[in-house]
């Protein structure tokens, strides 16, 4: 009797397995993806730039300042603040902006860059630190890292300014 029950359960299990195989393509893109998205997971801030802190509109384009991103656990990364300028199509050829990164009303860095016509090219420019908490840089070029970069990405110019004084903005 017990063996028969086990056999029946085994075939029911096999049928369920087959049903899963058949249903996958029809629920994957919609239901399952949305369920994962609502699970409260997020991609690490070293890739995304973190949460938005403030946004300033300059006519047709917007400058968005993000919250500082700090390394977690033993993460091999310097802390940084991300700034995005979007959309690229609305940016003037040359952008020069003094930006308040910590929300104290005083500019902390001066960002200047020239927008290249090719969306795959990197902008040429520099970041000048006006506050000792931040590290300025020239063209990062091949030395770009997650903490220090100036690139075009997703229709925006993304600039990441390294933080010199770890812990001061926590």
């Amino acid at each position, binding site marked *: 009797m017990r063996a028969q029950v086990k056999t029946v359960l085994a075939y029911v299990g096999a049928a369920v*397995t087959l049903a*899963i195989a058949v249903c*996958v393509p029809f629920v994957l893109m919609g239901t399952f*993806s949305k369920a994962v998205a609502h699970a409260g997971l997020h991609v690490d801030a070293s890739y995304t730039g973190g949460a938005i802190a403030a946004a300033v509109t300059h006519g047709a384009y917007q400058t968005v300042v993000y919250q500082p991103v700090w*390394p*977690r656990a033993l993460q091999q990364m310097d802390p940084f603040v991300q700034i995005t300028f979007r959309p690229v199509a609305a940016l003037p050829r040359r952008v020069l902006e003094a930006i308040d990164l910590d929300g104290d009303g005083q500019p902390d860095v001066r960002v200047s860059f020239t927008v290249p016509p090719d969306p795959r090219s990197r902008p040429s420019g520099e970041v000048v630190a006006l506050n000792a908490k931040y590290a300025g840089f020239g063209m990062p070029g*091949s030395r770009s890292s997650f903490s220090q970069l100036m690139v*075009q990405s997703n229709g925006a110019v*993304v600039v990441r300014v390294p933080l010199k004084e770890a812990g001061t903005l926590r």
Partner: protein
Amino acid sequence: MASSAARTRPPAFRSVGRSILLTVPVAMWALLMFAPTFRAPGRNHHLGASAVIVFMTTLFFLMMRTGKTYRWRRYFFVALGFLFPVGFIASLVAVRGSMSIPIERMVSGDTPFCYMVIPLLIIPAALARTLIFPGSILPTASNPHSIAVMIGLWLAMTLVLGKAWCSYGCFFGGIEEGFAAASKHAKIRKLDARLRLVPWAILLFVVVLSAALFEPVYCMWLCPFKAVTEYPAVHSVETAIQMGIFIALFAALVIVLPFLTKKRTQCAYFCPFGAFQSLFNRINLFEIRFDRDKCVDCTLCQTACPTMALSVESIREGGTLLNCMKCGACVDSCKKGAAVWHLKGTKVALKPERARLLFLYGAWAMATLFGGSILASSIATVIGFLPLR
């Protein structure tokens, strides 16, 4: 000559008519899966999809007709292994101009998700709700292979296949299976059984280190397949060392050792994802068992197993080791019919062909859905390279 060949041909396992009947659901599934491709314009994609439908259906028919699994599955798997990099590299070169992944793509979340990283995501996701991979959670126009889609696909395939993912789903394993098949005889026959433990050690090492460093350590330092997919742009000593490691591991584990041993050495002795997948063999309903009444301990199955998933002890106990990927090589090689497909909960060797069929329908559906779509896209890319009008 012809009559001699006819005399030596083994008897067919199943009649043509019954084989066709059993293949009809697979053909219909393939047509259903590729219907959207035919609705969209694109001659090359239509040709690729048509080729894959015929290919997958024919292979399944031959599995039904001959009763052999490994022999025919291998054609699909090797084709997938060798064509995947072709299509993937071609698309990278078309979009980026090179195989290297620039930091812009990582920042924008455009990195296609690779299932190899799944074990590394678990601890950071559980403790910090953070995914340590530079992709996007939901699919986007520029990155349809998002984290959610790929994890969903992996989860479903794992429930259906268990560790058989490694022989029906993995788009890397076919490369080494191809190199293993290219060699007529194994030049290295004796392999230390303790090497089977290495993937577990690597799995533990990369999972712990990835959680500590908050980065996918295996992808950044150890994945042999970076050599034929995408890798961080080489611009420093560190990235040059990374690239050197990828190429050395690929050459040794995926080309040279499989050729010398006729085994899938990367899968058997290195791959942490394969070790992780082994755990799901515990919950998967399908397995290979040995009918001890028929087994003569000839160990032909052990020699045929491409991943060292059989030992003398396990055969005596009537089963495989945890890392069996259900490729069917042992069943195909057994001359006594002792190695059989088995549905857990049923009596061993009572209806092995029924268990095989139930497994194969699920496995081939998944293979057509996942590997088949990769094959079709890669074939379309290859056709695009041909000087056809």
